[in-house]
């Protein structure tokens, strides 16, 4: 519905009756007349209408006759009222609509043949439907094209001033980057302030533009809609799991479009709580790596120290021989495997099956180890569920959202849109706690800036403030008085004043946040990289669960502690058992019943539980020579982990390093064999997104060069090693997973999970909680005053997006350290000044640049780039419980050189 939903979880709107074309229709009070008409199945043309935002009423097409009025009324801006008698058809209305089309066409250039919207243009359709063949007073605008932005071109000759772009940007995405401006006698859409467009570049304005006024620079003039094959698939940049259309021509990807488009403008506004169909800059403009020139097209085998192109058959023989030799000589424990969570569920499943049943090794890990496993372990430990309990709808309809340590608009832009909708439509109170000035903080009702690295202390303070103000939910704590007493005793030593000094958050703020969270009927906690990817991530998630428990939010509908995943299938990697501690379905690896079940299904004994090794163990064992062969799929530990871990030395020790990747990565350059793999656009499968929805990935084009899907390579490797795998397609693997994990393929409708904390609270809790709220950290020494944070930026995701030339055009590696302008002033630095950046791990020279989003006392460098190698300044702390390495934050000093 175009107007804000009249019914929300708190208010039920009254029902009214009105008559449309002689039929009595019931509707909710307060909705737009247009929505009532379209809900009966009648389609009235409307060019400026889209259900995701409020009606604007500029196109003059949605005319209907209302009894008692002489002239036709615009149905989109008219509210439905009881007793209205409406006529939607008739020659007079047709003529009136035709006049509106003629009005638009009279100032529209007839350059359809060269327009990118040709064949996908609402004005064209309308002119055709209304039979407009003659224009008495045509006039041209001669407006120069605005090509200043790196992504979008604005050809305002074609604009029909429907304002869909402005409305979607302002109302749905809350970015507000576009405006109308009277220029040259015409009302034109210009970027705010008539400068070069500089926004989040989600491209939703491009998607809703019903004509060709906004065009995509990366595929300008390259296509006509009828030339392209359109494939619905799932984005592989972040854990949001957005659906998108990959449009291909032969072997090139021409453009990516979203389900959000002017073409599907009819819908129920309440449905946008499950997603409005838009995609972000990475999804829409980051497609160029798929058919990029840097793609690997042939297997490479090291010969005389050089990687040389070799045929598949020869390469696979070589790989099989080498693996077999290592296994025979050193035993199964000398083989290890790492896989990226950008692979599909089927491939992740096959990978752990290959490692466990064919190689016989349990040294297997995925990139979920970099953070997501902190959340999974904590959540399983405390409430027994290994994923987020809430979905997008819960986020949207929450009354209070506590965003802690999450730059959500940068890491998961579409989940951020859900929070934005919670703010805008459902009037939620949003609390942001971060050490950076995030975009969400600018929209939130309660934005708080905390000192870097104090997220854990803030949670201590919130728990303390909740207890101090007696915001405790009696019913929840009554069941577990012992646990509650233990918690009270643990928090007794915490002093809010001391925490206030350490975190930079006032005592009053602690109390205010605790009150907002405890008093709202539906409260959501979202913790992301600032919690799970930092030291003590496991403990901090447990503390957040404590907070939810004592305020009675655990297990209540629409409440819960959630996380965000950075890679598309981190949840799937955990569910498929690509971790030494898990078998598929998150069964414990040492669970005898599960072991027996999988051993029987795979017809092979499982490796002993003692041989398990996670990422950090694998690297240690590589270094000390226990592991001799490493099979790496899509991972790049050399470019990801700091130099202090000595990854290079570890990899050089190996007798066999096989890297399987679409690109020649840093790790690949060290490898003995490099196998060319496909990207997501060239294979079938599924991703599990952060809500637990299993989403289809469909093949959009043939593999580039000789590259092959990962499951295909793994199957032939396994068969070479003597297994008898008969997978002909990803579907065969899916069928096997379906048998082993019934109900996992949930068709995008994950089962609701309810947290079950009772077991934990009545047993192990009291013993553990004492250590959780430790006395505040010792003061740091003053030599390193600044916090260096490495994190994600909106335009990039991991290292993969740096291969997408479009995203590099938008956000190139500046090679500069981003600092707060005030800090730069006190240090006497100008834009671009070279400084020496030193941490305990080393130092390097780097230029600086001012960045408004960096808080005072901190500096930031995007984790996607290693030039200069800022990551090497990081120290690594490994969580003792979960084995998660954290290396995204350290303390540094800066001197001018």
């Amino acid at each position, binding site marked *: 519905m175009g107007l804000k939903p009249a019914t929300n979880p708190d208010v039920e709107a009254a029902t009214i009756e009105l008559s449309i074309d002689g039929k009595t229709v019931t509707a909710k009070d307060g909705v737009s007349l247009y929505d009532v008409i379209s809900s009966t199945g009648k389609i009235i043309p409307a060019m400026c209408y889209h259900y995701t935002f409020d009606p604007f009423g500029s196109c003059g097409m949605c005319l209907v006759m209302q009894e008692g009025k002489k002239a036709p009324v615009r149905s989109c801006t008219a509210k439905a009222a009881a007793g209205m008698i409406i006529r939607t058809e008739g020659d007079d209305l047709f003529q009136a609509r035709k006049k509106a089309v003629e009005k638009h066409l009279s100032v529209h*250039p007839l*350059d*359809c*043949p*060269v327009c990118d919207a*040709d064949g996908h243009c609402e004005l064209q359709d309308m002119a055709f439907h209304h039979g407009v063949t003659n224009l008495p007073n045509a006039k*041209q605008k*001669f*407006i*120069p*094209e*605005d*090509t*200043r932005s790196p992504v979008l*071109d604005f*050809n305002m*000759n074609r604009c029909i001033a429907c304002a869909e772009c402005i409305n979607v940007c302002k109302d749905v995405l809350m970015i507000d980057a576009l405006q109308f401006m009277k220029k040259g006698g015409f009302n034109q859409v210009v970027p705010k302030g008539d400068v070069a467009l500089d926004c989040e570049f989600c491209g939703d304005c491009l998607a809703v533009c019903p004509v060709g006024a906004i065009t995509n620079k990366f595929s*300008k*003039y*390259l*296509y*006509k809609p*009828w*030339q392209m094959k359109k494939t619905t698939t799932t984005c592989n940049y972040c854990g949001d799991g957005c659906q998108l259309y990959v449009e291909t021509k032969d072997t090139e990807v021409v453009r990516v479009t979203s389900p959000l488009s002017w073409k599907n403008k009819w819908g129920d506004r309440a449905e946008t709580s499950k997603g409005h169909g838009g995609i972000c800059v990475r999804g829409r403009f980051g497609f160029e790596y798929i058919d990029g020139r840097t793609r690997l097209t042939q297997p490479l085998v090291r010969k005389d120290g050089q990687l040389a192109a070799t045929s598949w058959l020869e390469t696979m023989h070589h790989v099989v021989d080498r693996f077999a030799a290592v296994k025979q000589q050193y035993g199964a424990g000398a083989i290890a495997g790492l896989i990226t969570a950008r692979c599909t569920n089927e491939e992740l499943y096959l990978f752990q099956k290959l490692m466990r049943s064919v190689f016989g090794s349990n040294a297997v890990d995925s990139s979920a180890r970099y953070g997501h496993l902190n959340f999974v372990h904590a959540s399983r430990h405390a409430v027994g569920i290994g994923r987020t309990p809430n979905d997008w709808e819960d986020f949207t309809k929450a009354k209070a959202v506590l965003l802690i340590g999450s730059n959500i608009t940068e890491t998961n832009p579409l989940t951020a849109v859900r929070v934005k909708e919670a703010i805008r439509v459902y009037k939620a109170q949003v609390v942001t706690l971060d050490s950076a000035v995030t975009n969400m903080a600018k929209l939130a009702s309660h934005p708080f800036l905390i000192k870097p690295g104090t997220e854990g202390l803030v949670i201590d303070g919130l728990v303390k403030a909740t207890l101090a103000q007696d915001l405790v939910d009696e019913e929840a704590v009554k069941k577990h008085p012992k646990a509650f007493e233990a918690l009270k005793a643990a928090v007794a030593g915490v002093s809010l004043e001391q925490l206030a000094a350490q975190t930079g958050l006032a005592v009053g703020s602690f109390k205010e946040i605790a009150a907002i969270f405890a008093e709202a009927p539906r409260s959501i906690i979202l913790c992301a990289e600032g919690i799970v990817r930092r030291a003590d991530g496991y403990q901090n998630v447990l503390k957040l669960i404590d907070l939810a428990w004592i305020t009675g939010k655990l297990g209540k509908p629409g409440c819960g502690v959630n996380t965000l995943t950075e890679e598309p299938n981190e949840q799937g990697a955990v569910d498929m058992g690509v971790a030494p501690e898990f078998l598929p379905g998150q069964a414990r690896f040492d669970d005898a019943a599960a072991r027996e079940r999988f051993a029987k299904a795979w017809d092979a004994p499982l490796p002993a539980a003692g041989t398990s090794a996670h990422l950090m163990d694998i690297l240690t064992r590589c270094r000390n020579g226990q592991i001799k062969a490493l099979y790496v799929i899509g991972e790049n530990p050399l470019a990801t982990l700091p130099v202090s871990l000595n990854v290079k030395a570890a990899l050089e020790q190996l007798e066999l390093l096989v890297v399987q990747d679409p690109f020649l990565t840093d790790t690949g350059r060290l490898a003995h064999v490099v196998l060319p793999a496909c990207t997501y656009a060239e294979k079938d499968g599924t991703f599990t997104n952060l809500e637990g929805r299993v989403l289809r990935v469909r093949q959009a084009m043939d593999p580039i060069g000789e590259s092959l899907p990962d499951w295909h390579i793994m199957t032939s490797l396994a068969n070479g090693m003597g297994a008898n795998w008969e997978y002909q397609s990803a579907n065969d693997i899916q069928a096997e997973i379906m048998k082993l994990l019934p109900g996992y393929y949930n068709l995008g409708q994950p089962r609701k999970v309810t947290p079950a904390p009772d077991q934990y609270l009545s047993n192990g809790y009291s013993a553990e909680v004492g250590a959780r709220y430790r006395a505040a950290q010792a003061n740091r020494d003053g030599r390193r005053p600044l916090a260096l944070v490495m994190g994600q930026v909106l335009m990039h995701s991991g290292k993969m997006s740096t291969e997408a030339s479009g995203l590099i055009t938008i956000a190139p590696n500046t090679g500069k350290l981003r600092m707060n302008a005030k800090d730069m002033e006190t240090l006497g630095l100008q834009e671009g000044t070279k400084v020496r950046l030193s941490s305990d791990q080393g130092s390097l020279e780097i230029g600086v640049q001012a960045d408004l989003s960096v808080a005072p006392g901190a500096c930031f460098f995007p984790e996607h780039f290693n030039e200069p190698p800022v990551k090497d300044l990081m120290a690594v702390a490994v969580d003792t419980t979960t084995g998660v390495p954290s290396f995204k934050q350290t303390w540094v000093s800066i001197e001018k050189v």
Partner: protein
Amino acid sequence: MSVGALTKKILQAALFYEIWDAMKVTFRHMFHRPITFQYPREQRAIPDTHRGALGLLRYDDGRERCVGCDLCEAACPSHCIKVISEEDKERPLQRYASEFYIDVTKCVFCGYCVEACPVNALAMTKMYEYSTHDKRTLLFDKKRLYDIGERHLDDAKKYLYAHNQEQNVEASREYRYYFPQSVQKSTQPPPKHLS
């Protein structure tokens, strides 16, 4: 059989009547203008509306007419046309066909592509002699099509006139597209025929 009829039959047999009767046609044609056309020594005059090989045309100033709109490909019933368009590197914001292929072995010479062309860049010529030993040479690329258009420019124009698609040279200018300039560049005045 009567005596008269028998006599006639014998007489006809003696005088080889059937042969003379049959040769009558032959002799009559000896004094007739020959009907057989001595192709290829002789060439027939072809009407302007003749649908021969397709060619691409340029404007008088040498610029390519084709804007790469792909409407010919959409109109083609035998799917023999392939257009690949892009932005002109030298003249930004202008669309042109970077590649253009017509598979003449598939072409059914219906002329729909010419009708569909909004800038009259395609035209049919009177050229029909391009048989070859190698079928692959019948995939006409952009260069070949422009060569045909150049060599048979007069025929191509006559075709367009005859099909009532283009009146004369002056009128053909109106088909030219006015591409907007970038705001980053100085604004050029709009073309005369549009202002």
